[in-house]
């Protein structure tokens, strides 16, 4: 099949990655990047919003051809769908209420790099002590959830939320002490919280989060995947990704080697 057209799905409610404007159109980092990528791959793209919960099964059921929804490339997911090369890779960090006792925990401002499955990192050991007995909120079934369970599960209480937004509200309400998530996502959420929330502890980067965020594509459609791979490579190379990232995230999320 030669791909003249394709449908791309995203949630449309995960600002600033993707969001819905008041006039019903989709906006944000990913829709703008999608436009660039489709132009370069010479594919006529239609963007459709759909619910996060059903996205991967719906892709496999043929409801659309591409998922572009801050989808992290993980081994588990690779078993059911294929990915393009990553177009973004983001660090992760802890957040807490600005007036919390665990604000400005050890290592705040630092960046540590971790590889998958790495243990015994001394900064993390220090944090473990600082966060002992506290409650950490995470979004269920994410790479971050696994990291928190592996490293903090024994000393802190872990609470799982269906979405990050709900966890952020509870952080403000004081039901939990800490949240752990994508630092870019947090940066945007803090803006909406009017300074009530702040980062604490070091930023964690590296292969531990997998390769980054890529487009999800059905396993059978290798030709479509290859076309998008080429497009992403070119957009990364000429700085288009960086430019859009600065516009929406205020930081550069282009994957670093």
């Amino acid at each position, binding site marked *: 099949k030669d791909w003249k057209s394709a449908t791309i799905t995203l949630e*449309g409610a995960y600002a600033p990655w993707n969001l819905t404007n*008041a*006039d*019903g159109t989709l906006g944000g980092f990913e829709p703008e990047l999608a436009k660039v990528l489709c132009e370069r791959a010479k594919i006529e793209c239609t963007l459709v919003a759909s*619910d996060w*919960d059903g996205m991967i099964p719906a892709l496999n*059921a*043929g409801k659309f051809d591409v998922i572009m929804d801050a989808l992290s490339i993980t081994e588990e997911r690779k078993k059911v769908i294929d990915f393009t090369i990553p177009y973004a890779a983001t660090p992760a960090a802890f957040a807490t209420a600005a007036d919390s006792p665990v604000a400005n925990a050890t290592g705040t401002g630092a960046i540590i790099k971790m590889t998958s499955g790495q243990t015994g990192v001394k900064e993390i050991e220090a944090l473990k002590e600082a966060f002992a007995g506290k409650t950490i909120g995470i979004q269920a079934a994410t790479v971050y959830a696994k990291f928190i369970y592996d490293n903090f599960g024994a000393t802190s209480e872990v609470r799982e939320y269906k979405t990050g937004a709900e966890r952020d509200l509870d952080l403000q309400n004081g039901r939990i002490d800490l949240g752990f998530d994508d630092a870019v996502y947090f940066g945007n959420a803090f803006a909406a919280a009017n300074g009530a929330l702040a980062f604490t502890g070091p930023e964690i980067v590296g292969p531990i989060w997998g390769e980054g965020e890529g487009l999800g594509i059905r396993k059978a459609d290798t030709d479509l995947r290859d076309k998008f791979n080429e497009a992403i490579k070119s957009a990364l190379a000429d700085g288009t990704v960086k430019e859009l990232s600065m516009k929406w995230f205020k930081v550069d999320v282009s994957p670093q080697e």
Partner: protein
Amino acid sequence: MTTLELLGFGQNGWGALLLVATLMTLAVTATALLIGAVLGTVVAIAKLSGNLLLVSLGNIYTTVFRGVPELLIIYLIYFGGSSAVTAVGQWMGYEGFLGLPSFAAGALAVGIISGSYQAEVYRGAYLAIAKGELEAASAIGMNRMLRLRRVVMPQVLRFAIPGLGNVWQLTLKDSALISVTGLAELMRTSQVAAGSTRQYFLFYIVGGILYLVLTSLSDRLFNRAERRANRSMPAAAMGQA
């Protein structure tokens, strides 16, 4: 941005989208109620037939679709239905994907659920008809069809109205679950607006209020229908408890 601007019909206002979403919810619910009316009637007739096979089939239908969470049924129809349609399409030589649009899948799923509740409502209404009135119909020589049309149907409708009011309410709320198919009905639009603007409380409260508006409109409609249908009842039976 002020609350008023956010909810208004201006450039950055969500008013128009919310309004369309409310109408979408109304449309889905009404369609589902109609589908449910057809299924409910058939199932109620089966359950009243006295035929062992039909009665058991009817019982299975009402037990399963009342007993299984609505969300699962919506998923089954949305994904399962698409796979089935695609399979049929391929078998007939059509290449590629054929799907049930989310409106159709959602309305069908909620309609099937609504049907299980409506079946019980119609069955109860039928049983409420005084046996003597059916005998009186037979006694003047009405055949089955005529009796159904002239004596049974009008009374079933009358007795079913309060129950149908409840079913409408349930169906309205089940329609909120169709948001998982990405259909821009009221619930999903509220969620999207909340996520995009990070004004969670504002949009959930507004969403809730819009549901209440739909409820109060439909309440009014059903009360009117009930009063009309009860013209033939003694005044005392119409009043409150």
